[in-house]
């Protein structure tokens, strides 16, 4: 009777980004977005730093290979979106920390948005909905 698909618990837990230097990139996401280090795995082939949002628990995993390899963000993923109550302040913090604005700020159906490129080239979207 019951649909098995709805009885299972299945939820997004993290997004992984491959970056040039996970420790450098950690500074960007910690300073700008307030993400906090949960743990790290230092393995022979790569370093992985697991950051978590103190607000909703979502993980952002930063992974850098020990042997450097050219990074290609492709065009099938992203942006990674953040909701904020102060789009301008958050944009300033990101730009000061090395991000570049690629589009906006603008407004769509009552929501303000700005698109950024992180220092590693990942697209980030900031949204401020309604009044806050």
């Amino acid at each position, binding site marked *: 009777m019951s649909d098995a698909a709805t009885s299972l618990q299945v939820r997004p837990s993290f997004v992984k980004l491959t970056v040039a230097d996970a420790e450098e990139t950690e500074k960007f996401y910690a300073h700008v977005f307030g993400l906090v280090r949960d743990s790290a795995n230092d393995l022979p082939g790569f370093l992985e730093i697991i950051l978590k949002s103190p607000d*909703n628990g*979502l993980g952002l995993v930063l992974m850098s290979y020990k042997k450097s390899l050219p990074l290609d963000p492709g065009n099938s993923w992203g942006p*990674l979106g953040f909701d904020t109550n102060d789009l301008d302040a958050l944009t300033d913090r990101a730009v000061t920390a090395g991000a570049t604005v690629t589009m906006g700020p603008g407004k769509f159906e009552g929501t303000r948005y700005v698109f950024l490129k992180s220092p590693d080239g990942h697209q980030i979207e900031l949204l401020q909905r309604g009044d806050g």
Partner: protein
Amino acid sequence: MTETPTPRCDPGFVKLHVPDLEAAIGWFEAVFGWSHGQVLDLADFRQVALSAPGNPFDVILRCWKDGKPRDIGNGWGPLGVRTDNLEAVLGRALDRGAAVVKEPTSAGAVTFSIVQTPDGHEIELIQQGT
């Protein structure tokens, strides 16, 4: 003297770009049981947000209308997905055309497996405990 307060900031979504929006919606519904909101249909793209019940982080599927070839790159992914029944979810993913990238592996109290969706996005399934 006063330091600017840190703006509130919550990770809200990640977008996955897919060549066929309806097919991708069907895949995520059937495999993960996520429900979707309204399709947003604009000049350049169609997109829809998928949410797990009670979860604040959405996966947004977007289909560009430019018909440009999609390149998966190597800078993003996998998307991590937690479940209480990895075997069942993995079975459904494979039935629906996903490919195994990493067979189920146990590390301490965690079992994980990585699959690639029919559109090429890597998803890591994680089950805590048994």
